[in-house]
């Protein structure tokens, strides 16, 4: 992705808007850092000094200034409200981010997650005081098992990538239990996979071998069979894949893996396309992580927290990490220690992302079986609507094949214009849209991956598509200026990422005195 030729150096771009004294532009406001506006002795919390007492800190007391500025409550409110207004959000507009499933975050979920009986419970309280929490986790686990047709679910991974780690650790443990740990140490990963897949495999000592995708972006059972051997531990496949296509030969691939004594890890990032339409367990999957912050609407929060429970086949269930919930004589209990079982160990302290579990279960119960299936159908319909509406202007790498929940384009159609995928994306910002996913998957040149989700009204989709058509036609007409100077209306123009990487400034530092 070549940034050269675009204004990113300071002074390269002509300011588009009239300068003001404050730097504000009416409601579009600048905000300084707390280290510039705060004071060491200011505070927005009233804490009464304790009655005098003899401390027990020994000589461990902290001496000297820490350097943390404070603000009173009104100043704090202004500071964060003003900063927030420089953010795009789902509540404000469509995020066509392929692979991210930026659906609406229901507010009922926020309300229920904040019930004191969920939010104000310590993970290590005596279980008799937290049985409702176990019931909730169990309820969500049961729903996930119904949707996936699998045997067990590890609820504790804290994010999708953490879930991948969990699934691959379970596979590694299963292989070791068979005595093949020394020999089965290669994982097959298609070139189109998300970067977390090979990173996860490598983290736990597997080497990664590529499996090629066919001309239509999917992986054939034949291509997989060609790579199989006694050193293969597993394959990691995303389904639907990162190009938005259902892996048609997935059942044969799973069978081939199992026949060869290996396992099938499924990256469930795109589960939103198939909930209620098919079950990964029926397709032969051994482990699949589910991103609760994608398929099940838990909020992205500017980058996290996520949650990545992992559904497991019967073959892998014995190796699930602790803790897990068991039921005995109608009562729920928590198994917290791996000793005496085949569990591969523990992935994090405590019991998982309870706050996200409440939100996800509220989402699932609200939709119900019929709503969940309708959501998947609407997501797939919306993506195909996008695909056909743009197909006369924008090139698709795999022709006019129907997609699942996301539509993929490449930059072939931009070739004569001298514009890049990035230029196109930045121009969308000026129109009030967050760009789609760009340059992913890597197997497609200048990829543009659009996932509208089921949360968009037809009016919203139509306006989005008309806007993209307008932009595309403008690009094809050679109106370069609009693109190479974009974004020109956002709180910031293009930022100098080269400088940020060459001379990293990762924190505020008090300027030297004098």
């Amino acid at each position, binding site marked *: 992705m070549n940034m050269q030729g675009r204004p990113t150096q300071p*002074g390269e771009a002509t300011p588009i808007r009239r300068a003001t004294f404050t730097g504000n532009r009416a409601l579009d406001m600048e905000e300084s850092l707390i280290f510039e506006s705060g004071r060491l002795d200011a505070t927005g919390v009233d804490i009464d000094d304790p009655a005098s007492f003899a401390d027990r800190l020994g000589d461990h007391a902290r001496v000297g200034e820490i350097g943390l500025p404070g603000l009173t409550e009104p100043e704090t409110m202004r500071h964060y409200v003003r900063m927030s207004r420089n953010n795009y959000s789902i509540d404000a507009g469509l995020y066509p981010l392929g692979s991210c499933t930026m659906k609406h975050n229901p507010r009922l979920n926020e309300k229920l997650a904040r019930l004191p009986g969920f939010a104000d419970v310590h993970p290590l309280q005596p279980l008799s005081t937290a049985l409702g929490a176990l019931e909730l986790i169990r309820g969500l686990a049961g729903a996930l098992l119904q949707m996936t047709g699998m045997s067990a679910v590890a609820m504790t991974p804290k994010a999708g990538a953490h879930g991948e780690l969990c699934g691959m650790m379970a596979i590694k443990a299963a292989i070791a239990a068979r005595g093949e740990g020394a020999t089965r140490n290669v994982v097959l990963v298609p070139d189109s996979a998300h970067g977390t897949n090979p990173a996860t495999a490598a983290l736990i000592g597997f080497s990664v071998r590529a499996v090629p995708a066919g001309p239509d972006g999917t992986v054939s059972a034949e291509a997989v069979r060609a790579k199989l051997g006694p050193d293969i531990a597993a394959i990691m496949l995303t389904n639907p894949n990162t190009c938005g296509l259902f892996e048609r030969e997935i059942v044969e691939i799973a069978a081939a893996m199992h026949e060869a004594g290996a396992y099938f890890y499924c990256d469930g990032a795109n589960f939103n396309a198939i909930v209620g339409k098919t079950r990964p367990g029926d397709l032969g999957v051994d482990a699949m992580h589910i991103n609760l912050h994608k398929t099940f609407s838990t909020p992205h*929060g500017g980058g996290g927290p996520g949650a990545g429970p992992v559904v497991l086949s019967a073959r892998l269930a014995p190796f699930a990490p602790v803790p897990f919930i068991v039921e005995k004589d109608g009562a729920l209990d928590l198994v917290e220690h791996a000793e005496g079982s085949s569990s591969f160990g523990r992935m994090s302290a405590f019991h998982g992302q309870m706050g996200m579990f409440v939100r996800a279960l509220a989402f699932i119960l609200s939709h119900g079986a019929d709503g969940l299936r309708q959501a998947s159908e609407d997501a797939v319909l919306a993506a195909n609507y996008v695909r056909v509406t743009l197909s006369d202007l924008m090139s698709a790498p795999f022709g006019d094949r129907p997609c699942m929940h996301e539509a993929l384009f490449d930059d072939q159609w931009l070739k004569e214009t001298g514009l890049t995928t990035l230029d196109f994306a930045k121009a969308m910002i000026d129109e009030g849209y967050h760009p789609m996913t760009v340059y992913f998957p890597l197997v497609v040149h200048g990829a543009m991956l659009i996932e509208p989700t089921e949360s968009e009204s037809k009016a919203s989709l139509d306006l989005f598509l008309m806007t993209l058509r307008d932009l595309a036609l403008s690009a094809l007409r050679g109106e370069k200026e609009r693109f190479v100077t974009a974004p020109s209306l956002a709180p910031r123009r293009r930022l100098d990422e080269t400088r940020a990487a060459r001379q990293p400034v990762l924190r505020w530092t008090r300027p030297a005195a004098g």
Partner: protein
Amino acid sequence: MRYLPLDGADRRQMLARVGVPDIDALFADIPADKRLSGLIDMPLRASEIAVERELGAMAAKNVAAGSTPFFLGAGAYRHHVPATVDHLIQRSEFLTSYTPYQPEIAQGTLQVLFEFQTQVALLTGMEVANSSMYDGSTACGEAMLMAHRLTRRKKAVLSGGLHPQYADVAATLANMSGDTIARLALDPRADEDIIAEIDDSTSCVIAQNPDFFGNLRDLRPIAAAAHSKGALLIAVFTEAVSLGAIRSPGEMGADIVVGEGQSIGNSLNFGGPYVGLFACHTRFVRQMPGRLAGETVDAEGRRGFVLTLSTREQHIRREKATSNICTNSGLCALAFSIHMTLLGERGLRQLAKVNHANAVDLADKLAAVPGVEVLNAHFFNEFTIRTPRPAAELVEALVKQGIIAGLPVSRLAPGAGLDDLLVVAATEINAPEDRAAYAAALAKYLGGSR
């Protein structure tokens, strides 16, 4: 269905534009015998009223920490979160925004992360911090892997003062990646000889302060010993408020500092989501996992922020990444940062003082109960008592009187022979009458008949 805007007419129009007769035509790639013909076996859609009733009933079965005398810590702490914090994190632009990969329209998030990174660096006494990890325990595991990369060694030494679940996480990771762990026995009296375990094959020493039992440890000798053997010191904390009162790990020579930030701005949430804090020396920054926000300028010369040094991360390096991490704990980091801003230096120090004062008061009251020994000479807001009866039974008995008395060590370390130890925490939320009630109940339980 209230979350699905498309209606029948919309769908028909869209299907017509797509050029298929029905929606199932778009699912034709699913093998025919694997398509679900009916609905999943689950209840049908439900109204807000119904969902609220169902989940509300579950919530009502739990005892909320704020509703009763509460003295449990052991890695997660019940503090007061100011009303402003929860209000601000629910703003649409913070709650429903994505990772700031398009920085021009994510300056809100990026500036918050830059401030957060600075606050964490200052708090821990280190040069640089990342924009958060999932939690303290996974941050600890990642720090261990980072130390292995930096030293090109594979053996970590774990103090017996480390939270047992943190140690379990590190052990699981080590086992999976073929590394070694030397795990010292649980050390309630802080008298282990960890320095004797450090040798030329050690990549890092992982030590916690305040430790799992509440002891305050001087990490300086450990740092010196580690450095003399070419190893790194990873300092861990689980109670972030402690850094308002005790010497920072940076000042004591830590190379990497990891900890749990939940205490500041975040509710207990039955264990998650929490926020992992991760800080280190600037010279190690390219080996540091997780996201980093950095300062730069835009094309008009205005200051702005971007995610930077991304080439360490999975989406670029793939199998050569420093980690496989894709998410941070964004909203929880925001909550931490807002609360820290509201506190400021003065507020944090005062908050820490109140915590310590309450813990001292409680320790004195409990020590006065016949048969009870407080193990720690020095502590912050958490300490360990030894009682003549098994701590687990004691806790169950006191629950019946509405008192959450603390963590029996046997729950996290069943075979360690420490069944008589209870880890007790006191924070600013405990009223004097709570502490008095605890001491009285304990005295009654221990003095009473079996």
